[in-house]
């Protein structure tokens, strides 16, 4: 299987859905990726199980404030240069690249890197969605060491990291991103094929294309979209898909705390009669409560779409008065182990509520 320039708009639409409100505007990454694929040709997608155990793979993506990229554009070859800097640092060639986050623009960065470097992209990622911190990645949860790692910025400055634990690494790359104009590209969490196989959410790149195509071909009211989405998710690593709510955004208040967009949105029915849905936001949509009762939480996916078209709405763009629908999707099984939940359950985001898998919550 390959990723071609003509797959990018579907891939990016699917990735925005999986971004659960985070991940930034995909317009610029999509445009750069298209330029890279036009220049270098399509990229091969390799299933994790088809990777040799001794293959050397590195994960790659952008770190920082995606909003900055709307003003200070990345360069077309920045991701490729990042890989080359990584190879120079470790003194060996890599066999494949992998995404650390399928949600949003970070789904496309490994593809541009692979195109320029002539290596395949592993079909899968380290989140299956978007999440705000590196230690929430499956690679980190599975015990992969974040370094050796390199960061590359707009000017070609290269910074290398030797850091044994991911939370410390996360803290360092955030500071570097701020000092480098707000956005950097990192190659990190290198793995062998054997290490990668149990540490990845498999199939999410190909799945994003399928999901994006389904959203495009069935563009329309959310209630009509539901059966299509149920089918698409049922045959994936995700599983359950529910339409939680349809209504208007009657309140949205977020503010920046510690670099994160934190706050709450309230939705009320179109008719104004009935229960309100509140959604807690920390870059992504994290907890949904119907009249106070929890109906979905992270790591399950909570996605807000435009009611009329099914187009996903980023948390930054969610505003008062919009008519929306809210979907919830069960997360991949990887996140439902005790060890993973320590990193990604509601408690990891400061919510004093237990994680109950979506399928076990009464409709």
């Amino acid at each position: 299987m390959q990723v071609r320039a003509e797959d990018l708009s579907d891939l990016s639409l699917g990735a925005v859905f999986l971004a659960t409100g985070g991940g930034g505007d995909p317009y610029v990454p999509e445009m750069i990726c298209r330029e890279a694929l036009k220049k270098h040709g399509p990229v091969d997608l390799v299933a994790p199980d088809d990777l040799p155990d001794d293959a050397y793979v590195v994960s790659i993506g952008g770190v920082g404030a995606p909003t900055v990229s709307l003003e200070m554009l990345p360069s077309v070859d920045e991701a490729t240069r990042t890989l080359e800097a990584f190879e120079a640092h470790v003194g060996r060639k890599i066999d494949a690249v992998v995404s650390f986050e399928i949600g949003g623009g970070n789904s496309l960065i490994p593809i541009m890197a692979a195109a320029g470097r002539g290596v395949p992209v592993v079909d899968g990622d380290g989140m299956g969605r978007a999440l705000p911190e590196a230690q929430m990645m499956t690679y980190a949860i599975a015990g992969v060491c974040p370094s050796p790692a390199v960061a590359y910025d707009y000017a070609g400055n290269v910074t290398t990291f030797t850091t044994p634990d991911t939370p410390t690494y996360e803290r360092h790359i955030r500071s570097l991103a701020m000092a480098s104009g707000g956005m950097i590209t990192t190659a990190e969490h290198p793995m062998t094929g054997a290490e990668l196989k149990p540490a990845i959410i498999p199939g999410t790149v190909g799945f994003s294309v399928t999901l994006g195509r389904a959203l495009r071909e069935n563009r329309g009211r959310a209630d009509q979209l539901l059966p299509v989405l149920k089918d698409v998710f049922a045959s994936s690593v995700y599983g359950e898909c529910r339409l939680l709510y349809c209504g208007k955004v009657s309140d949205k208040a977020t503010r920046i705390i510690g670099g994160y967009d934190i706050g709450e949105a309230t939705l009320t029915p179109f008719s104004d009669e009935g229960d309100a849905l509140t959604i807690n936001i920390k870059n992504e949509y994290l907890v949904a409560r119907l009249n106070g009762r929890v109906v979905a939480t992270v790591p399950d996916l909570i996605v807000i779409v435009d009611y009329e078209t099914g187009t996903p709405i980023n948390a930054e763009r969610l505003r008062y008065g919009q008519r929306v629908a809210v979907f919830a999707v069960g997360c991949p099984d990887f996140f439902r182990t005790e060890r993973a939940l320590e990193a990604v359950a509601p408690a990891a985001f400061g919510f004093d509520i237990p994680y109950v898998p979506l399928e076990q919550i009464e409709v």
Partner: protein
Amino acid sequence: MRIGIDVGGTHTDAVLLDGSDVVASTKALTSADVLTGITNALDTVIADVPQADIEAVMIGTTQFTNAVVERRELSPVAAIRVGLPSGTGLPPMVDWPDDIADALGRHSYMVKGGSLYDGWPLASMDDDQIDAAIADIASKGLKNVAVSAVFSPMNAAPERAVADRVRAAIPDARITCSHTMGRLGLMERENAALLNASLLAFADRVVSAFMEAIRARGLTCPMYVSQNDGTLMNADFVRQFPALTFSSGPTNSLRGACKLTGLTDAIVVDIGGTTSDIGVLEGGFPRESNVVISVGGVRTNFRMPDIMAVGLGGGSIVAADGKTIGPRSVGHRLVTEGMVFGGDTLTPTDLVVAGGHAEIGDKSRLSGLSADVVAAGNATIHQMLDDAIDMMKPNADPVPVILVGGGAVLVSGDLKAASVLHRPENAGVANAIGAAIAQIGGESERLVSYSTLPRDAAIEKVKAEAIERAIDAGADPGTIRVADIEETAIPYMDEGNTRVRVKVIGDIAALAKKEAN
């Protein structure tokens, strides 16, 4: 007294306003040369008034939008972007449709420089590199230049430095710097500057023609042109910023509806021949769209009103059972193809006449229509508008609805979404009234850090820039007031990094002086 003129694709409307009173109005077809239509409209409204009583003429025009959409009258432009090494491989116009990129000539230059979000230099500027670009531009004989730089809304110095060098080398160059055009979002702001630069020569011709038409009628008063946020530009300003007229038509219609009813918070439904355009008045001004707006296929971040267009107008085609209407329309052929006009296409206009709600054309031609179809059709009209208004309402509270435009007659009953329904007199020329009553505005936006500059001081600074722009555009300094302050925190960055936008509005300086005398 003031004259407002609205030059649309189909009609040229004019009104003569004495204070708030409409003294005279006219609606005529837009002439192929545009100017004859304006002259005729002027003649009609000033027929009974001494020229000396006319204090100002305000013109709203779609000519510049149409030039971009139709790829006419566009001059070749050189684009210089100051931003390397960032954005390597993504030159200006990279995502433009081919036909309009070709119309501008694809002359892109990228040089080192610009700023980071916190003001740190992105790269030092290289005069030799800049001069090489300018030499190439000069050798191609290009006279229109758009200059953009990374984070120029926060630090305009790199754009100004390049513009100065261009001006020194090519003295008759016409230059648009992106920081004068818009907000954060490099490509969208740069696109706006490019479109603007490509319209500068046309703007000269249009403004000169307007002035000539007005002077030829013996009027010596100043002339203004409407811009997309419902404020005015003087003639010199239009010559520099023609692209700011984009989308001024719907804005004028909303502002006119505000004036006609005295309502500052309402939904305005402008029903034409093909669509119903629904907009929202908030505090007397149009609610602005916060999404990227495409003009002729080019992404821009102009300030545009948030308008929802529904495929329902007087000439929309009605299905045989009356349950589906539009989006296809007979448009201006309504007067020959509509059933009451002797044609055989069923339109909403026929439904309204058949229902006994209006007298248009020859009702006897509708005798074959079943009462069921007429009832179903009229119900569909109201349902379509109700649904659309409900979507645009800012909250669940009932909201007043103002009907304007020639198709307002289609609404024969109540709209459930409306607390009250207004059908102002002179609603057919709301656009021209909106143009006539406009004031002068100024806007500024910056990304500021409240941790280095306290919030009050930061807002004061942005406000001062907005006021300076309003005065440049012809506002009376004594009357300027803040219309809107918008603060948006930037995610993934340090606390206190906030995008601040301030909009100010004031009376026209030239008129204020006159009143003082």
